[in-house]
């Protein structure tokens, strides 16, 4: 017998086999029911999946996600730094902002921004002795898309601020001290030393945030945000093919989320640099 390889009868996991069998049966039954349903209409799905206005909706959804995440993340860094500030007023203000925007449903916030005109009919900016610099009806300044971006990014700021704060706190204090000892200012230390290291902790949950955001954009359909969900709702509002069109939307969201997951992998690898030896040794 070959002394280097061990031959033994492996442990039989009967419980696992039984569990797997049950799952397979349930899955088969579910997909058969799905395909047997007269309302799924695969042909209709195919017909709408690449329609130009559906693709336009996909574009708007991506744009909303990107803009809200960029603004949200930028705001989150500011909020997180304020939350860690030595100044109690700044700390308190950041805390209150986060408290409010995390404490109210996103749907409520979206509708609020959509109907801002009901609260402030006109937006006016006037400076004493200089006069009125800006005066417009609110509905003109804050369009549906603007309201959607405002709502999504302010909400994102509040959530991401806590993620960023956690990331900043995860960086060893010795790093800040070493940077200070080199004569780096607090701002430079934050930007060049602390934040890049915090990124390693921040990126995975921010990947989740981006995926959640992509799907949350569907909520802006309540204020006619022109996104994928708004388009799909418009179509099935006319032809009553609700299920096939929801499947069209779901397929697009799934595809986009899959692309984001791949992107997340590469971004995580980029910011993990230096924390584990890259494969294949030194570069």
């Amino acid at each position, binding site marked *: 017998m070959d002394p280097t390889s061990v031959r033994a009868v492996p442990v039989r996991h009967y419980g696992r086999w039984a569990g797997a069998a049950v799952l397979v049966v349930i899955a088969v039954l579910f997909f058969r029911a799905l395909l047997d349903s007269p309302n799924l209409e695969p042909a209709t799905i195919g017909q709408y999946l690449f329609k130009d206005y559906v693709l336009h909706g996909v574009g708007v959804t991506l744009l909303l996600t990107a803009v809200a995440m960029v603004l949200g993340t930028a705001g989150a860094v500011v909020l997180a730094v304020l939350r860690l500030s030595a100044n109690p007023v700044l700390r308190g203000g950041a805390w209150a902002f986060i408290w409010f925007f995390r404490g109210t449903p996103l749907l409520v916030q979206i509708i609020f921004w959509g109907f801002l005109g009901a609260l402030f009919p006109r937006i006016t900016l006037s400076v004493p002795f200089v006069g009125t610099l800006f005066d417009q009806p609110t509905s003109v300044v804050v369009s549906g898309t603007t309201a959607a971006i405002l709502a999504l990014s302010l909400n994102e700021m509040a959530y991401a601020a806590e993620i960023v704060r956690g990331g900043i706190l995860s960086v060893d204090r010795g790093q800040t*001290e070493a940077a200070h*000892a*080199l*004569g*780096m*200012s607090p701002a430079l230390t934050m930007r*060049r030393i602390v934040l890049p290291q915090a990124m390693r902790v921040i990126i995975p949950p921010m990947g989740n945030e981006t995926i959640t955001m992509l799907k949350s954009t569907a909520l802006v359909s309540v204020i006619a945000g022109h996104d994928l969900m708004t388009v799909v709702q418009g179509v099935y509002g006319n032809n009553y093919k609700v299920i096939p069109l929801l499947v069209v939307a779901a397929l697009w969201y799934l595809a986009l989320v899959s692309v984001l997951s791949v992107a997340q992998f590469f971004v995580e690898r980029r910011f993990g*640099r230096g924390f584990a030896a890259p494969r294949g040794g030194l570069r």
Partner: protein
Amino acid sequence: MSEPKGGAVSEPKGGAVNVPKGGAVSVPMVSAEGVRKRYGGHEVLCGVDLRIAPGEVCCLLGPSGSGKSTFLRCVNHLETVDGGSLRVDGALVGYVQRGDRLFELRPREVAARRREIGMVFQRFNLFPHLTALQNITEAPLRVLREPAGEVRERALALLERVGLADKAAAFPAQLSGGQQQRVAIARALAMRPKLMLFDEPTSALDPELVGDVLEVMRGLAADGMTMLVVTHEMGFAREVADTVAFLDGGRVVESGSPDEVLVNPRHERTRAFLSKVL
């Protein structure tokens, strides 16, 4: 009594720097008078007196918890002093005096003063997301805003000097402790400091890696760098130090030449400490 290494004016090292051409006595690089530091109710430093002349190497010894690290951190204002006066190259640390009133320095001004003081930590504290070369060039590029080519050249020369010319592209995680500490020394030197602080630079290292780091420090001392070194390496202290100060209970109990303090200590506490570490 033996001749103290750094004290005599005829000595080329330390002594010569002490008396500039004009004949006026130069300002000490570090001068501490009655420095106090409290954490909550616990007084860690209760009146530290210490003077380090330009070009002098001073080793600070003392039992664990005696306040060695705290004092070092006070010197570059990582900690604020509660009492007494602490000056580096004549300037009060953390404050500026106008008339007879003290004004706290702004963070930007504190940062500017720290540029002239290099610090090396027990745990290295290299920036893990930057390569060895980037660790060294970061501060000269961003703080001093020196031209990139020049900084890179200087950084490579420093890596060469600490014996790591081939490790420029390595990340800290790919270096041994001793190599990391030598990069950390190069990083501090890249700012061309006039004073170097070392806080137990070798005590986190495996014994066989200590030698390389001490060798680099020996070279620095030979080049006339002013150094304040907290260490338990008695061999280094005896060989390289101009003065040795023994800190205990938040006070400098005894200071003098290595021979005075290490060979013929006058105080009971110094003797007790030395009998434990030697």
